[in-house]
C-alpha cells in the first residue's frame, strides 16, 4: 500500500464548517509536502460562516477575508459540499469511514441564556437572532422584532452588543447601501426606538468591546452617545488594570468613554447610553416585556480578576425590547463529545478528547467550537495553524488505509435526497446576489431562504421565454386552422 500523503494514498481531510477557522485549517493543511485533499462540509448552501452572517453590514472591510477564502476554495485539492448537515444528512461515523482526519470548525450558533424570570417574554430576544436576521441568515428570516417602543436594552458589552446598538441607532441613509437584508431595512425604517441602553455587569475597565467599535458609537449621524461621568469611577484594581502596559487597548477604550462623558447635552433624535455595574435580575411585564429589573453591582477581587457582586440596590428600567448579548454557544453534534458547560468540544491543543481526557484519533476542533466565542477574525488563523500542527504531528500514527473522501459519500447523500451544492454552484448564487444588489446600489442582495439559493443554481424557465414559446405555439395552431378550415 502506498504511504499516506502520496498521490496514490492522499491524506483525506474533512472540515465541518466553512467559516474563517475552517478555511484557515484548509490553508494550513495545504501547506505541506504531502498530498492532502480537503472536503469542506457546510449545512447552508452558502459558505463563509460569520464573516457572511455575523460581521455587521456596515463593516464591509471586515468581510474582505472572503477574497482569501475564495482563493483557497479554488485550489484543485479543495472541494466544497454545501447544503449538507453533518450529524443529520451524514453521521460522524460515516465521515470517519471516508476520511483520515475530521476537523470540526462548526463554530457557535446558539447563545447563552441569562437564566432569569421573564426571559421568554415577547420583546425579549438574543443578539444572535437579531444579527442573523439583519444579515439575512435563512435560519432567522422569519423572526419578528417589534421596534415600536421607545426604549431598547442590550445586555452585554462585547463587540456584538455594540453592533446591535449601532444598527438600532443608525439612520436608513447609513444602512441602505450595505448588504443588510432588505426585510430588515423595512422593519428598521419603521423603528420608533429613541433610547438604547448597553448594560454591563462590571465596570468600564472590564468591558469587552474594543475601542475601534466603541468609537463608532460617537460617529453616528443622528445619535448621541451618553456616558454619565459617575459611571466612569474606577476602583483601585480597575485603575491598575488600565495602567497595565500590556492593556493598551483597555486604556484606549476608557479614553473613548471619557470623551463621550465630556460631550455637551444631546441634541439628536436618538441616544445610545452606556451603563456599568448592573445585572438584569428579571424581565417584567403583562404578557410582554415592559421593564427590566436591574441589580446594582460593585467589583471585588484582584486586578484582572474582578467579579461583580450585587449591592442589594435595585432599579427598574422601562423598555419594550431587550437583547441579551452575553456570548454565543456551540451546539452538540451526535458522535462528538460535548462540554455543555462551555458549549465547546472538549479538546487539548485541538485534539478532541473523550470524558477520560483521551484524544480521539483523527478528530480535531478549531475556532469557536474549540476555544469558545472569543477573539477577532484573525484569531482563528492562529488557532487553526495550531490545530493543524497537532494533526500533522499525529499523521504518522494514523491508519494508512486509502480513504474514499466525498466520492464515498455522494451516492449515500443522493439516496437521502440531499442536493449537494458545489463551489461552482455557490458561485452562481453569489453572482445572482451581486446582480440583485446592483439596482439598489447595494454590494449584494442576499437570498434569505435556502430554496431561493437552490433556485439560483438551476433557475426555472424564465416567464418571458415561456410566453414567447406559448405565443409561437398558438400562432402555429391558428395558421394551421386558417390553412385547414374545417
Amino acid at each position, binding site marked *: 500500500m502506498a504511504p499516506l500523503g502520496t498521490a496514490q494514498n492522499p491524506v483525506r481531510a474533512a472540515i465541518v464548517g466553512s467559516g*474563517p477557522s475552517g478555511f484557515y485549517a484548509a490553508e494550513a493543511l495545504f*501547506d505541506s509536502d504531502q498530498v492532502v485533499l480537503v472536503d469542506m462540509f457546510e449545512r447552508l448552501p452558502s459558505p463563509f460562516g460569520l464573516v457572511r452572517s455575523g460581521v455587521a453590514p456596515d463593516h464591509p*472591510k*471586515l468581510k*474582505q*477575508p472572503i*477574497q*482569501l477564502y475564495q482563493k483557497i476554495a479554488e485550489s484543485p485539492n479543495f472541494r466544497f459540499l454545501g447544503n449538507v448537515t453533518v450529524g443529520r444528512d451524514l453521521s460522524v461515523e460515516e465521515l470517519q469511514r471516508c476520511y483520515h482526519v475530521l476537523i470540526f470548525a462548526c463554530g457557535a450558533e446558539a447563545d447563552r441564556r441569562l437564566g432569569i424570570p421573564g426571559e421568554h417574554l415577547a420583546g425579549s430576544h438574543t443578539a444572535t437572532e437579531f444579527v442573523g436576521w439583519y444579515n439575512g441568515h435563512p435560519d432567522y428570516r422569519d423572526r419578528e422584532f417589534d421596534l415600536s417602543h421607545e426604549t431598547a436594552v442590550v445586555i452585554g458589552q462585547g463587540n456584538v452588543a455594540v453592533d446591535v446598538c449601532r444598527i438600532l441607532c443608525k439612520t436608513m441613509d447609513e444602512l441602505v447601501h450595505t448588504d443588510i437584508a432588505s426585510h430588515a431595512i423595512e422593519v428598521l425604517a419603521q423603528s420608533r426606538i429613541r433610547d438604547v441602553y448597553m448594560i454591563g455587569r462590571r465596570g468600564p475597565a472590564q468591558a469587552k468591546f*474594543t475601542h*475601534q467599535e466603541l468609537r463608532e458609537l460617537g460617529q453616528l449621524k443622528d445619535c448621541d452617545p451618553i456616558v454619565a461621568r459617575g459611571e466612569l469611577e474606577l476602583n483601585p484594581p480597575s485603575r491598575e488594570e488600565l495602567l497595565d*502596559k*500590556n492593556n*493598551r*487597548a483597555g486604556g484606549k477604550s476608557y479614553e473613548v468613554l471619557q470623551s463621550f462623558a465630556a460631550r455637551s447635552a444631546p441634541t439628536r433624535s436618538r441616544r445610545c447610553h452606556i451603563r456599568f455595574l448592573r445585572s438584569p435580575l428579571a424581565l417584567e411585564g403583562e404578557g410582554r416585556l415592559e421593564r427590566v429589573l436591574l441589580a446594582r453591582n460593585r467589583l471585588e477581587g484582584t486586578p484582572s480578576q474582578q467579579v461583580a457582586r450585587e449591592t442589594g440596590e435595585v432599579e427598574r428600567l422601562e423598555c419594550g425590547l431587550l437583547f441579551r448579548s452575553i456570548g454565543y454557544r456551540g451546539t452538540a453534534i451526535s458522535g462528538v463529545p460535548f462540554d455543555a458547560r462551555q458549549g465547546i468540544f472538549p479538546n487539548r491543543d485541538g485534539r478532541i478528547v473523550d470524558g477520560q481526557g483521551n484524544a480521539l484519533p483523527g478528530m480535531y476542533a478549531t475556532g469557536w467550537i474549540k476555544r469558545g466565542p472569543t*477573539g*477577532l*477574525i*484573525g*484569531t*482563528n*488563523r*492562529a488557532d487553526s*495553524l495550531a490545530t493543524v500542527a497537532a494533526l500533522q504531528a499525529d499523521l504518522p500514527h494514523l491508519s494508512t488505509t486509502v480513504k474514499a473522501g466525498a466520492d464515498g459519500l455522494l451516492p449515500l447523500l443522493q439516496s437521502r435526497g440531499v442536493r449537494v451544492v458545489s463551489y461552482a454552484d455557490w458561485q452562481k448564487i453569489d453572482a445572482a446576489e451581486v446582480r440583485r444588489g446592483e439596482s439598489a446600489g447595494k454590494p449584494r442582495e442576499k437570498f434569505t431562504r435556502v430554496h431561493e439559493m437552490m433556485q439560483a443554481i438551476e433557475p426555472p424557465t424564465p416567464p418571458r421565454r415561456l410566453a414567447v414559446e406559448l405565443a409561437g405555439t398558438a400562432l402555429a395552431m391558428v395558421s394551421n386552422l386558417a390553412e385547414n378550415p374545417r
Partner: protein
Amino acid sequence: MTTIVTDNCQGSRFTDCVTVCPVHAFHGDDEMLYIDQEVCIDCGACIPVCPVQAIYEEPIPEDKQHWIAINESRAPGLPVILKKQDPYPGAEERKKELGFA
C-alpha cells in the same frame, strides 16, 4: 484607517503578528516586518500579540507617523510572511530593554 509596524520590530522581529492576520498583509525583510496598506483591513488582531507592541493603529502618534510611508512603500515589494519565524538574535534582551515582561 491605518495599521503600521514601527521601530520596536527592529532587532526583535518576533513575527507573532503574522499568525493572526486574516488577510496575509505582513511582508518582511531581514530587519523587520511591514504591513501592506492596500491589503490590511484594520481588524486590530495583530496589535495585542506583538511582544514589543511595535504595531500602531489610528490615531498614530506623531513620532510614529513617518512609519506610514515606510510600511506603504516597502511592504508590496517584499515577500509575504505567513508563518511564525524565529525572532532576531537578541530579541528577548531587546524586549526586556523596551520594558516588556
